[in-house]
């Protein structure tokens, strides 16, 4: 297991290098001058542009730029953005909020998705099953931003239960609805996956054995059936943590949350690539690491998995 972990970590390095290089390349080398539109209506003076190009190393060959980027990332020195504000402080303000939002979303996915899936899987074709099937169908069809605007309008504007936008400190209570929106798609997937898994395992031999052992129904379902059925579900939840972070771009935009997603979004529309590159790289890192953790978790959840 330890060996396997190390090997997987080593495998992570080339992928990480590849993706970060790709991000650097795309952002800095593709057409469009990032400094052209920074001076209001008038074109920027040449002196400004060339000074900026020198400051951000754009006059150097791409490989050298990339090498500089790697050195900066590893030393934790992310430099300043185009407005000369340190990138690190911006990240430091934004991360905790997004992490809070993502964790809340995972919790919602897990609790609601799994319960709905279990209930509908146990009684196939029953009332709850139909309700779950239809509501997951809707959740899967509604684009996340529609769910977001709809809830914002309904709960925030019409009924005024929540404030339509989240305040700067983003307390947990205000994050519940945004987290629900962020979670909605995966929640539907989780419910369906759980249902399929329960349905598949319900007729399995070991469940039959558990009944034959004279266990209570609650224990058969709650211990034997659930423990096995949740393996793929937990794996799914884990793998999706990464994409949840990038899904936060939309949710944070709608509810005006000052997290990573909002920061990235503003940076992209403002073409401030000094922020785009480190955030995108960090998101990819989170994604890759969460996938690795899920792989390891899989081995803990299912003793049959052997790592060579």
């Amino acid at each position: 297991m330890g060996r396997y972990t190390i090997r997987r970590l080593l495998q992570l390095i080339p992928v990480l290098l590849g993706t970060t290089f790709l991000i650097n390349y795309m952002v800095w080398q593709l057409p469009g001058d990032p400094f052209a539109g920074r001076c209001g209506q008038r074109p920027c003076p040449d002196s400004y542009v060339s000074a900026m190009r020198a400051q951000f190393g754009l006059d150097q060959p791409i490989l050298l730029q990339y090498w500089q980027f790697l050195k900066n990332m590893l030393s934790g020195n992310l430099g300043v953005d185009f407005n000369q504000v340190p990138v690190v402080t911006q990240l430091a303000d934004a991360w905790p909020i997004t992490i809070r939002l993502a964790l809340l979303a995972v919790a919602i996915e897990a609790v609601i998705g799994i319960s709905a899936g279990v209930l509908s899987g146990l009684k196939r074709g029953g009332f709850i099953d139909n309700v779950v099937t239809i509501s997951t169908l809707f959740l899967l069809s509604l684009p996340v931003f529609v769910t977001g605007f709809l809830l914002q309008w309904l709960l925030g504007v019409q009924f005024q239960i929540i404030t339509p936008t989240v305040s700067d400190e983003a307390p947990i209570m205000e994050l519940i609805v945004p987290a629900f929106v962020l979670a909605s798609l995966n929640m539907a997937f989780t419910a369906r996956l759980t249902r399929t898994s329960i349905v598949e395992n319900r007729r399995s031999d070991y469940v039959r054995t558990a009944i034959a052992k004279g266990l209570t129904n609650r224990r058969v379902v709650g211990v034997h059936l659930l423990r096995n059925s949740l393996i793929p579900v937990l794996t799914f939840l884990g793998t999706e943590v990464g994409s949840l972070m990038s899904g936060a771009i939309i949710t944070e935009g709608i509810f005006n949350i000052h997290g990573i997603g909002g920061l990235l979004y503003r940076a992209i529309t403002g073409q401030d690539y000094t922020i785009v590159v480190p955030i995108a790289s960090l998101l990819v890192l989170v994604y890759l690491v969460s996938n690795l953790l899920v792989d390891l978790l899989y081995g803990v959840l299912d003793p049959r998995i052997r790592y060579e």
Partner: protein
Amino acid sequence: MSDPSVTQDLIHGGEGPAASVVSSSNRPRSLWQDTWDILRHRKIFWISFIMLILFLLMAAFPSLFTHKNPDYATLAKSMDPPSGEAWFGYDLQGRDVFARTIYGARTSIIVGVLATLVTVILGGVAGVLAAYYARWVDSILSRIGEIFLGVPYVLGAIIILGTVAPAQSSPDRVTIMAVVIIVLAVLGWPILMRIARSSVIQAKHQDYVQAARALGAGPFRIIFKHLLPNSLAPILVYSTITIGSYIGAEATLSLLGIGLREPVISWGIAIADHTSYIRTGAHAMLFPAAFLSLCVLTFVMLGEAVRDALDPKLR
């Protein structure tokens, strides 16, 4: 999709080795006949089918539904709420929201369908090649697919579009639609590759394919006559659902300002234009959002109905 030979039946009109599959009713029954029998009795199928027809009509002949010009603006009526004269009210620039919503269907459906088509071609070719040639072709294609899947969808789209067609630029109608279509397909093909690959691998080991190979049939003949037809059903199901999710994705990108933009008429743009007016004029945003959701729902529902009918085990 448990019995690939049944699909074979359908494609070749019951010829060949698979023709001997006879069910208890003494008549060879194809997968599609069975599926149709189940579908016919499903309400959800008919609902989505009728909705599909409606949306397609809307996309093809918007003037059937409204005689107003979607581009005609009366600034004085900016953000006027729904009324008898304008069912969905007016938008920020005083244009008729109903007309714009109807005309928006065309863009969404064109983008959804074309992006799916490109995805199917890219993914299908990659999948069949990977499965047919196996070995290093398979491992290279699979690795590339993994890298593309490795980048979270929204992030990938934002980075590509944000650099290729930044928010400030104003490309013309066709260019921007083409760019969005390609971006969607480039990020989406690996899933289709997996589907095509696995169903072709399943078929490859069937006796009749082995026999065709032994008889000296060339790779093209085998791929087109035996392997491709086999992945048809799962690809069809997945594509239908994908059209729906691409329509949603297109709107999301437009919302972020990096997808479609004026002068294209699209639901996503309409929503994006009015996000700041949610307190005062939600109608300009909610109606297009409702049409968008219904349209996505139509495709997802249709795809799921067909999938369930193809594989009743899952129900």
